[in-house]
């Protein structure tokens, strides 16, 4: 039997029998879901509105507390964990949210440098500057290193949010409609950068999306319907 750490490295996300209901909700949003994400995989999670995609993503990301079932993320069991332990899990994950939610007062570099504060040993300002410059170049917004959000387009801001998720080289990336505000070319670029990150680091990514343009770039496409996983292709 493989040691737990080796298993966590090879299978960064294991979801077993997870069900979830919202307070006062009429029915279960997730119903006995099983899911496994392997090392280096880029997996797309899709389904119609209300299928439970985002709920599943937030449960895996320790943003919501687990009700039924078990989830293991990067070797950490999420069931019954307190707020501090949930924060520990979140710090290890790179989140890309649907809205960029950048602080108007912070430059792009300051935003990225702030994100590095989540690591146990944050890099120096100079090292973070180099890393941020390289990442932004890859995302096609290298000229905006010291820009404020108001000086950028919505698509550019979303790419900053992607850079914020990648700056700490996380072993797991969770994205909620990360390309929703991007045109086709930018979407391809962003997914390309994420894929290159996975290839270089062995990290895995689970992305919730309706954008069928990126289905072809995924290793697997999972489909949720009425809270159940109905296909894995």
């Amino acid at each position: 039997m493989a040691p737990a750490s080796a298993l966590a490295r090879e299978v960064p996300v294991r979801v077993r029998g997870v069900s979830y209901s919202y307070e006062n909700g009429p029915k279960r949003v997730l119903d006995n879901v099983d899911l496994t994400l392997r090392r280096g995989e880029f997996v797309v999670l899709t389904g119609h509105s209300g299928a439970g995609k985002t709920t599943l993503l937030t449960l895996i990301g320790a943003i919501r507390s687990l009700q039924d079932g078990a989830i293991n993320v990067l070797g950490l069991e999420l069931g019954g964990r307190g707020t501090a332990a949930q924060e520990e899990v979140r710090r290890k994950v790179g989140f890309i949210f649907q809205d960029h939610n950048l602080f108007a007062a912070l430059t792009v570099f300051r935003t990225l440098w702030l994100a590095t504060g989540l690591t146990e040993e944050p890099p120096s300002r100079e090292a973070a500057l180099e890393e941020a410059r390289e990442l932004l170049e890859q995302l096609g917004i290298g000229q905006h290193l010291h820009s404020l959000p108001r000086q950028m387009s919505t698509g550019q801001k979303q790419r900053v949010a992607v850079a914020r998720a990648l700056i700490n080289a996380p072993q797991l990336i969770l994205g909620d409609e990360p390309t929703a505000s991007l045109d086709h070319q930018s979407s391809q670029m962003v997914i390309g950068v994420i894929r290159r990150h996975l290839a270089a680091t062995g990290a895995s990514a689970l992305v919730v999306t309706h954008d069928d343009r990126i289905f072809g770039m995924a290793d697997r496409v999972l489909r949720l319907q009425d809270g159940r996983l109905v296909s894995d292709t």
Partner: protein
Amino acid sequence: MSPSIARPVLEWFRDLVGAGRPDRGLGLAFVSHNRGRLAAATGGIAMAVLVMFVELGLLQAILGSQSALAGLIDGDLVIMNSARTNLHEWTRIARIRLAEAAAVRGVANAMGVYESGMLLRNPPERRVHRIIAFAMDGQTQPLKVGDPDTVRRALSRPNAVLFDRLSRDIYGPISLGRTIELDGRSFNVAGFARIGPDIVMDGAVVLSDGAWLSADPNAQPVMGVLRLAPGAKLEDVRARLKVAMPPDVAVMTPREIYWREVGFTFRSVPIGIIFGAGVATGAFIGAIICYQILFNEVVDLKKELSTLRAMGFGPGFFRRLILEEAYLLAAGGFLIGLLAALITYRFLAGATGLAMQMHAGAALFVAVATGAMTHLGGLFAARHLGSFEPAELY
């Protein structure tokens, strides 16, 4: 500053401005980003600081002016009637006590100080105004009321008077050589003294004890100022005086009189409570303003702050961020408030004649109170962050 102290101070400052760690020093960016809010916040806190400074300034000025006479005493010990509970009460001692005190071993000189209220008329004005009159020997000068040579020369002339230059201007223009009337007697203004008004008296004049006694040969002094002989020990002389004097005579140092006067003013008129309440109100207003401003900021940035929570930033980070902002607002508000207080002090000193002065102790007290009130406001504002659920982003 030694290197062992300089390094932690430097590191603290680097942390504060965000030069060291990525999750520090954001307060400055947040505070300075919205200039309208920054102006409102610092203006509001500056107003609270000004209220505290004015309350403290008035309290200090009143306490200082009420006990100013103690600071004018130029001697080592003072004998007074033990029934005299404060300097504004003129319970007197028998003049013979001066001679008795002077006879005690170790006392070089015992000088009487006379004090009473008089009515001053400044011709050609018809109206009279009450004024406090002091009398003393111009040669030995038991009270320091001005340049010793000027005082000596002026009080050696017959019917001469020193007018207190710091008196309120109700007495009209009084210049050197002018003739004024005190209780119907004419006196020539031979010089000026520096005593200062308080909340009871508007002004003062100083006469020679000779002029005083010629008007009332039975006049009794309000105090006797004693100077010790060279080499005499104060406590020994005090002990001998207590034995030599009857029990209705108290023996005190000028410093003891000062603090007794401060204590009396503090207790008898409840100014401690009145001005203390004023300072507390200022601090409370400041805390409310700081809380309101930071709370608005937290609400406006709810999505952005929730995003950081979702990313894994903990409560400590948010508390530090809000407190950083609170301290910066406190620093800005304090500096503006201090400047406004200095201007207000000048105005109030001119308007009331009270000695409104900025003391380092008061400035330190208000600085600490400002830090405390903004800290409190910041902590309450930061508490709201705890209610933000990152899951609400979805």
